[in-house]
């Protein structure tokens, strides 16, 4: 009486009344079933309020001018990307001007899903939209010094130029992230209904030239992708159809992958990944997330940690290894016990390591007798952050620092960190573009972004970060990075704890795994069977 997916598929192929989708279904080897915690809330990554999985839609259904070059993951299992090596996606070739202040792109002969050829006009429209639409898209564009529509010039149908407002090494890689993708501007304008950016229509419709089209999208339930057989911007994907189901419960996702019913599972708790690796039946590919770290932010403006000695005390007291084992189950890289002089890289181990005596001495010098304080974290990250904060609380108790743990849901958490009054906050921050200056700009720069949770203000650090961001001189850059990292290590507004691993569990028959900085699945490279 039971119905497995195999019998269901057989029934689907033999019995036409089962439904159109099943009747036309590509063979099982060409269909991928992905299970994830939650799916996209929009199909337009540039739109305001787009959630994390929308990156996957942008990645698979749209093309950009450039993409990051795949390079093998050192531990095996697939590819990650190299930030500094770019490949053409819609661009057939490109040339940076001799003065280094613009770049001219030659477009390849690609067609949108609608059949229209991709022109430089569409590229301009799409990049104009990204810098004008506001919200995250505009912020991300600005991070690569792309700020106004005048910077984008369509020279003729196949030639496009980006003018730089300053020399910024992030401009080119920023053209390969999931924001500056190219829309079919005529289709969007036709359906926009008076809105010049067609926000409502593009939220529910894909108008791209990418490797996949969205066949059906039921928010909160599933998204079905089918291959675009006319894709011109790369090797035609092996998969013909991808079904992404939203399965909220991690236990269910784990059961599905272990049982072989799901092909790929995203977002399991670290413990499940460790168990799956130990059991050995399922392939788990882990990549230390570039430019990401779990960190303890200590408020430098108000409360006890305005005293640098207490911040250093905490850095000496944290049980780094225990945290890595008990909360991340080893799925990460320890960020303690590093060299005295930092390397020009982020994240990297700070010179601190667990040393109770040193910590105690610092606390006794600053506040003999200790004090009470609070530690805040986002309830959405509780699987990892909860054990982490308990271990922190235990480690600080012998120093006379009495920690009260507060857990708040996601929407409150953003509000709380924006206030910048919490003495201690546990957070994981990851930047898409893998540069130390980029990370520190968000987390420690005086521009005081929401992620400068410690509210750290230091003109000296700002100067070094700014210099590093816009320098063209490689040696000078490395020197500046080392100086601002040394400063950050001394001042510790942020104590880095671990660099988390991005794990994906898949059947052994799945190949071609490609890690992208946006951390969403890239169906274009995946193979099955």
């Amino acid at each position, binding site marked *: *009486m*039971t*119905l*497995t*997916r195999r019998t*269901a598929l057989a029934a*689907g192929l033999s*019995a036409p*009344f*089962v*439904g*159109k*989708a*099943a009747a036309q279904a590509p063979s099982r080897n060409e269909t991928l079933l992905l299970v994830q915690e*939650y799916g*996209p*809330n929009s199909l337009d990554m540039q739109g*305001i*309020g787009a*959630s994390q999985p929308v990156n996957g839609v942008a990645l698979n259904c749209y093309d950009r001018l450039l993409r990051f070059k795949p390079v093998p993951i050192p531990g095996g299992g697939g590819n990650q990307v190299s930030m500094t090596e770019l490949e053409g996606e819609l661009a057939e070739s490109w040339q940076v001007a001799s003065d280094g202040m613009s770049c001219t792109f030659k477009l390849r002969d690609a067609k949108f899903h609608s059949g229209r050829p991709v022109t430089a006009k569409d590229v301009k429209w799409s990049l104009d939209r990204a810098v004008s639409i*506001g*919200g*995250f898209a*505009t*912020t*991300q564009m600005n991070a690569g010094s792309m700020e106004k529509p005048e910077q984008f010039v369509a020279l003729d149908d196949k030639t496009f130029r980006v003018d730089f407002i300053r020399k910024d090494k992030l401009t080119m890689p920023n053209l390969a992230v999931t924001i500056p993708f190219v829309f079919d501007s005529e289709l969007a304008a036709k359906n926009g209904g008076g809105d010049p950016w067609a926000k409502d229509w593009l*939220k529910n419709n894909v108008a791209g030239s990418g490797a996949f089209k969205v066949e059906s999208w*039921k*928010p*909160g339930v*599933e998204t079905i992708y089918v291959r675009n057989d006319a894709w011109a911007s790369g090797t035609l994907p092996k998969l013909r159809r991808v*079904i992404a*189901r*939203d*399965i*909220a*419960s991690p*236990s*269910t996702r784990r*059961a*599905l992958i*272990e*049982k072989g*019913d*799901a092909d790929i599972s995203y977002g399991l708790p670290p413990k499940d990944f460790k168990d799956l690796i130990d059991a050995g039946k399922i392939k788990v590919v882990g990549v230390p997330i570039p430019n990401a770290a779990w960190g303890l932010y200590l408020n430098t403006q108000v409360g006890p940690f305005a005293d640098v000695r207490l911040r250093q005390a905490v850095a000496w007291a944290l049980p780094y290894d225990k945290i890595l084992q008990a909360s991340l189950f080893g799925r990460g890289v320890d960020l303690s016990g590093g060299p005295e002089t930092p390397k020009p890289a982020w994240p990297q181990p700070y010179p601190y390591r667990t040393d109770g005596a040193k910590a105690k001495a610092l606390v006794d010098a600053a506040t003999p007798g200790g004090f009470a304080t609070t530690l805040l974290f986002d*309830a*959405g990250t509780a699987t990892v952050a909860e054990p982490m904060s308990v271990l922190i609380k235990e480690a600080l108790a012998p120093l006379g620092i009495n920690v009260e743990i507060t857990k*708040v*849901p*996601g*929407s*409150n958490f*953003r*509000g709380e960190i*924006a206030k910048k009054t919490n003495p201690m906050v546990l957070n994981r*921050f990851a*930047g898409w573009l893998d540069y130390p200056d980029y990370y520190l700009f*968000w987390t420690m720069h005086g521009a005081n*972004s*929401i992620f400068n949770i410690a509210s750290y203000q230091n003109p000296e650090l700002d100067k070094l970060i700014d210099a590093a961001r816009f320098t063209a001189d490689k040696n000078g850059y490395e020197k500046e990075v080392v100086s601002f990292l040394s400063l950050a290590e001394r001042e510790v507004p942020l104590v880095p704890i671990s660099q988390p691993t991005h794990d994906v569990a898949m059947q052994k028959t799945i190949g071609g795994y490609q890690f992208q900085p946006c951390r969403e699945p890239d169906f274009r490279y995946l193979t099955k069977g």
Partner: protein
Amino acid sequence: MLKTLGDRLLTTLPALVGVIVVSFLLTRVLPGDTAAYFAGPAATPQAIAEIRKELGLDRPLPEQFGRYVANLSKGNLGQSLTTGQPVLADISARLPASAELTLFGLVISLLIAVPLGITAAVKQGSAIDHACRIVATAGVSLPVFFTGLLLVYVFYFLLGWSPAPLGRLDVFFSAPPAVTGFYLIDSLLDRDWETFRAALSQILLPGTTLAIFALAPIARITRASMLAVLSSEFVRTARASGLGGRTVVMTYAFRNAMLPVVTTLGMVFSFLLGANVLVEKVFAWPGIGSYAVEALIASDFAPVQGFVLAMAILYIVLNLLIDLTYGLIDPRVRMGA
């Protein structure tokens, strides 16, 4: 009858107005900043302010309320930010999924609990009575997510009898043409036996999970009210008149014992509908409970208000139906009204 209906409906209006005002105020009083949440990672204060303006959250509360009511009168419940769809569309897609699951669970539990309760009352102190007590105690004391996970583990993971817990239908099936929104009924209407079987095999485990939970109140109430009725004078008279045991129990006693059971049923139904969030999570069931909870975590006001409103309306309709059923079961209720 029609007049009763009209009167009853009129009295529900103040309750609805209350629900609208309270749900609006409650969502606004809750801590949390919708705009900051939806601005996403790496948002600047300007980006957050832009979003706040676009959502109309920078306006004074009375103005926001006025807009909300004006939209409501046009049948517009607002936009969900978590799914990006109109709330009305979300709710009308998800309410049938929850209702089907809940009704299915309720029917299973009725089929077991009512006979169990009756037998337990008739044979008080017997093995069946003890079994009833054990089943009821176990049913309430096992949390639903636990029963759900246990069933998945045993019937899907270990035995492989049940299909993958992937929601309402296996990935290779498409939904039957929507008539009622209940897949089981729609697929039958469409004479699509394959889809019916697929939908049935998907709903069996989550339905059973809910049934186990609902078993306890129904079985206990049936038993208690049967005991009360069985010891009453008219039953004694009926027995003394020489009527058969079956006639006495089923025709005379059971009908009189049904009122409290029906009341409990209504309560259990509305309670399950909102509270089966955890079952929905475990079985990836695209229902309304998990929808509301996710919206609440994201401080996404519109779906929460829509959910509360939908539940209020449902509860009102349900109570009305139950009141009307009373009239059918017990003529005295009809006379009284």
